[in-house]
């Protein structure tokens, strides 16, 4: 059995398929939400770099500032 994958988008809570796709009434479909499987942006605890060699990108230039420095 072949299972075709058809792209669509959610609009106003309903799934709209591509305009050139017309499925028979009561066709059983499975919905895969693509964007939920993308790597999310950062909200993470005790983060470690996945690629340790990138730590050199985060070396800091440190400058002592006076206590009354205007920030």
């Amino acid at each position: 059995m072949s299972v075709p994958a058809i792209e669509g988008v959610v609009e106003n809570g309903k799934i709209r398929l591509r305009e050139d796709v017309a499925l028979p009434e009561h066709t059983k479909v499975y919905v895969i939400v693509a964007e939920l499987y993308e790597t999310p942006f950062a909200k993470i605890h005790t983060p470690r770099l996945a690629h340790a060699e990138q730590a050199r990108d985060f070396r800091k230039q440190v400058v002592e500032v006076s206590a009354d420095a205007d920030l």
Partner: protein
Amino acid sequence: MPTYDALQYDPPAPMASVSLREINGREAVSDVILLLDTGADITLLPRKAVERLGVKPVSGAEYELLGFNGTKTMSQAVELDMFFLKRAFRGRYLITDAEHGVLGRDILAAVVILLNGPGKEWSEHHYRNLITTTELYLPDSCPLLITSRSNPRTVTYGTYPFSLDRL
């Protein structure tokens, strides 16, 4: 005195309040709260604070991070000055969508901090200006006069090897 957060963390966690400034800029954002996290490789700044400052993420610079539970996430980077313990740390930082940021070892490795858990406060420890034992090669029980470059009138008597907590 920097304090611990006992409301959102149990046991309480040490938190730092830092300021952010655009490199060579004049505007600053103060009171940015970060969790002191020695397990974190790098420092993450709250997105809201970075956006308030108006600093844009570095184009094309995204980093993959691993959480302690193996969670993977991507983070954008910004370059700015962060002010912490009377120092400006200029360089690259990552952004978190969390309310509080994380102060990681890219910063913590440059400072000496004393954590007072029972007192729920922490402070900078100022023995960094003293000669360290690694720079000395002396016989045991050798008498020493120890002083500080920042405060040369302070003299401590001791014998080698001395305990750091006596300083």
